[in-house]
């Protein structure tokens, strides 16, 4: 994407908070630089305390950065208050005003902008219709289900036609089934309206399902930016590999490199793997194998492992297997078509060599 398409630009953003009970400071956001493109759905993903929510609050204007700049469509908005930034935020707890009706909640922003009553009525009705809330305008938030409240929160944000829509873990208060449904609704709504969106979550499935790009954060810094596929298949660090999905790590040495591939020995078998980073022969690295890349076969030529646990999960069987000091997680799809091995048995451990990814040791 070109510089022209950049909607929001974060430049060396730093946020420090005073240390609780001490005289020092804690750096919650550490020199983050990031471009968010027009119409893009970008997710800030990371564990608790990684700085993702602070970054979102800096973007929204609820916190001021210690240093750095925030540019919206090329204009520096760093000193601007939240209401001047033309952004809307969907909160984790929805933040609906409990003493107002659904209609008043959705129309509140338009009212503060001084829009006429009839225009507010038209826009609110349209917005409620878009969110499948027709006929619920007179209800109070506490008379709605969690999913309906979430839709009201979305309607309230969208009605302001913001340049950027921010989401702060909006699905975390919903039950698992509703979360999947709302995820799908947010996804299709964002695509339909083509609204630039920044989403904060610690749920990697949510991040992968919704996002054009995912920003994985750790310790206030960006660990990796990429599409969900890039992040999953080619994690830049052991942290990312471990945080996104599950992974098995095998320490290996690079025997040789040739034309963007490396020759390594994993689980007693020589293989060639594509190189994502600048590794050289003789370097110690870590081979990452996702559980679905591994499989169990009764083949004496393969590295033999002992099955410690067998878990039948319906669509797959998960095994915990041991080879010496190391344990592996193996996920075999569709157990109806494969043999299910019993705990305590010994079996060969196979893998798809093309799916092996090398990480720094």
């Amino acid at each position, binding site marked *: 994407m070109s510089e022209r398409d950049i909607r929001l630009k974060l430049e060396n953003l730093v946020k420090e908070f005073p240390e609780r009970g001490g005289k020092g400071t804690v750096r919650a956001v550490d020199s983050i630089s990031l471009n968010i493109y027009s119409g893009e759905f970008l997710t800030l993903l990371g564990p608790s305390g990684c700085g993702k929510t602070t970054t979102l609050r800096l973007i*929204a204007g609820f916190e001021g950065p210690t240093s750095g700049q925030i540019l919206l469509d090329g204009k520096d908005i760093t000193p601007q208050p*939240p*209401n001047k930034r033309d*952004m*809307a935020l969907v909160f984790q707890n929805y*933040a609906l005003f409990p003493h107002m009706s659904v209609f008043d909640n959705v129309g*509140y922003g338009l009212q*503060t902008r001084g829009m006429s009553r009839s225009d507010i009525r038209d826009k609110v009705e349209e917005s409620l219709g878009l969110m499948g809330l027709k006929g619920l305008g007179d209800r109070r938030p506490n008379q709605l289900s969690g999913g309906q409240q979430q839709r009201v929160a979305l309607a*309230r944000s969208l009605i302001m036609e913001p340049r950027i829509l921010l989401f702060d873990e909006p699905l975390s208060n919903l039950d698992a089934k509703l979360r999947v449904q709302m995820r799908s609704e947010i996804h299709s709504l964002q695509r339909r309206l083509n609204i630039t969106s920044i989403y904060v979550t610690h749920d990697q499935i949510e991040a992968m399902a919704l996002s054009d790009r995912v920003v994985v954060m750790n310790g206030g810094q960006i660990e990796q930016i990429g599409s969900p596929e890039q992040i999953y298949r080619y994690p830049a660090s052991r942290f990312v590999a471990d945080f996104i999905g599950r992974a098995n790590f095998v320490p290996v040495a690079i025997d040789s490199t040739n034309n963007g591939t490396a020759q390594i020995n994993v689980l007693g078998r020589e293989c060639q793997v594509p190189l994502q980073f600048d590794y050289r022969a003789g370097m110690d690295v870590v081979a990452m194998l996702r559980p679905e890349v591994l499989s169990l076969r009764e083949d004496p030529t393969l590295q033999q492992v002992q099955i410690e646990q067998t878990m039948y999960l319906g669509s797959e069987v998960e095994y915990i297997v041991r080879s010496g000091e190391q344990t592996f997680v193996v996920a075999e799809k569709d157990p109806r078509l494969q043999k299910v091995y019993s705990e305590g048995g010994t079996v060969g451990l196979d893998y798809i060599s093309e799916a092996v990814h090398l990480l720094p040791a």
Partner: protein
Amino acid sequence: MMKIGNYTLRWQMVLTILVLTVLCLVWIYPFLWMISASLKTQSEIFSSGLNLIPQEPQWQNYQRAWVDAQFSRYMINTVLITIGTVVLTIISTSLAGYVLGRYTFIGRRPFMALLAGTIFIPAGYTIIPTVDLANKLGLLNSLWGVILVMAGTGNVIHILLFSAYFSSLPKELEEAAVLDGAGFLTVFFRVMLPLAGPVVATVTILKFLGAWNNFFVPLVFTFSRPDLRTLSVGMFAFVGENETDWSGMAAAATISLIPVIIIFFVMQRRFVEGIAGAVKQ
């Protein structure tokens, strides 16, 4: 065991009920005596002993209090003063409580401690400078003077109640309003204050009682303007140099109590919620 209809009561329970009934009667007896006295003649009050039933209800006692003793005028004064005091108190204490409960600023804790410390200053301690100030501002002998003095004093508990309540509300509510373009006062009056209904009710009742029954401030501030007296000050007029009109005073006291009882019953539920909510924090 004792059987009453479908209920079987244990003797301990019966004993408890009896003791509590006696306690309740002792508790409300003065109130019942006052109503009874308001319907008796002056001599009957002292001759009938503990008997609460008047021989013949003397409704003219109420007429004497309402018309002759000008309680109709005092009632209007009291209502105006009480409403003014309550409204001003709600606005000032809720705003102060909001800032103390929601905002962090240098010196907040020492300020709160200082504020709490003023609870121990006796009420009459500040009356001389207050009267002096009111006099210089031209507020002495005016209803506004009484309202401002009563609305400006004795509010620490109310501020702390509001502060505790506001600090318990999620900050996202304010942030959502701010993002929608609301300024400080809009956020406060449209979003935060309506949510503090239980505390508003609590403070309203507490301040209402304080203002309605206040004797000292209206007495001092209406010293040379009898027409501005309140019910509690007006009650004093029944005490003569040589004799006291007890039945008229009882009728006047009953008149002044009726609005208090009505307001308590109307706001009772919210009052309890407000106290419970504040304590829970």
